């Protein structure tokens, strides 16, 4: 009699496979692929309703097993004895995966036993929030940016929204703004510094166009002494 096991109880296809191997007392190094594939498929069939998202991974494994089964069934053409000796067992990859997975599953159980105190362990003093205990925050910009990227990557891809930009940015205004900025700074500034006066991309674009125009009109001179160095801007 086969008893129903909820597929959700398995933490992935490797877990289910391992369960079947252990239940049938099979040798991991010599898995009867045809047998295990049938068993595996049977389990998938008996689960009834399932969550497609979780099921996907189980189905990928099913396909892999079926493929493996057919490869093993097909007679190998022009086999010499040496070839058979040297041939890599197509099951090898699967065996390796199963062994790896089993190793970490065991390690996970070990961790859990430490958590519940079943494995002897030490306990640290719980850090209490003593008042007056000064805290120094360790921060770095790159982890902040990574955190932002992580959040953004997790976001479901949103429908692109058409946004009508508010307010117009005029290149002429920006040209005036640059001249005023230069005048305020003794007629000199640097490229990077100049761009601190804008806060949006659209403004930055307009500012850049304005700067090009001023250079063309020979109102502003741009120089760079060393490649990659900040460009120096000066009034003619």
């Amino acid at each position, binding site marked *: 009699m086969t008893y129903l096991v909820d597929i959700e109880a398995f933490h992935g296809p490797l877990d289910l496979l391992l369960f079947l191997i252990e239940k049938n007392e099979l040798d991991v190094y010599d898995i009867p692929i045809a047998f295990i594939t049938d068993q595996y498929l049977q389990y998938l069939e008996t689960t009834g309703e399932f969550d497609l998202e979780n099921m996907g991974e189980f189905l990928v494994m099913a396909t892999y097993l079926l493929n493996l089964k057919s490869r093993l069934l097909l007679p190998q053409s022009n086999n010499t004895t040496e070839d058979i000796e040297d041939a890599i067992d197509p099951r090898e990859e699967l065996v390796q995966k199963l062994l790896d997975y089993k190793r970490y599953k065991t390690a996970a159980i070990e961790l859990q036993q430490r958590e519940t105190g079943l494995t002897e362990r030490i*306990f*640290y*003093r*719980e*850090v*209490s929030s003593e008042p007056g*205990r*000064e*805290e*120094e*925050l*360790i*921060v*770095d*910009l790159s*982890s*902040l*940016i990574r*955190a*932002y*990227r*992580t*959040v*953004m990557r*997790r*976001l479901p891809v949103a429908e692109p929204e058409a946004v009508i930009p508010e307010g117009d940015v005029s290149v002429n205004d920006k040209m005036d703004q640059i001249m005023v900025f230069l005048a305020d700074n003794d007629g000199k500034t640097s490229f990077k510094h100049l*761009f*601190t006066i804008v*806060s949006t991309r659209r403004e930055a674009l307009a500012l850049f166009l304005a700067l090009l125009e001023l250079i063309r009109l020979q109102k502003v001179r741009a120089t760079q002494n060393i490649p990659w160095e900040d460009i120096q801007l000066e009034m003619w």
Partner: protein
Amino acid sequence: MRDEIKAAIEAILFMRGDRVGVEELVEILDVPLLELRDLMRELIGEYFQPGRGLQIIPVDDGYLMCTKSEYSEILARSVRPVKRRLSQAALETLALIAYQQPVTRAELERTRGVKVDRVITNLLERGLIEEVGVKEVVGKPILYGTTQEFLRMYGLTSLRDLPQLEE
């Protein structure tokens, strides 16, 4: 047996580093209340010895393990500000606020997919974010933004220094 229970009490008080109630000790250790009180008296006495820097004191029908006051000076010298990293949850929320400010709690929760109340309180307490106004929509939710302290800590001179992210 008594030794074992005393050792366990010591371990519990140490681990918690805070007051542990008598009823809780009775339950964890499965000893009668009177015996516990007796053991505690013994234990407190042992800690009283010179050569011990810790003490156990009764607080609100419970006990607390802490340092003896004689050593406050030396301890003050050794208090290194605890170095802490922001938790990942706090870091992600802070990053979102930095790039999307001013922003409301609801907007943050929509993006992060989890409640952010506690994280916001934490960031406010640390002075990394502040309330910068209210959004002119129903309910007038509070808008949050980063502070001067945030810029200082991350070595930024202004928000424009935040690296542009590729879209």
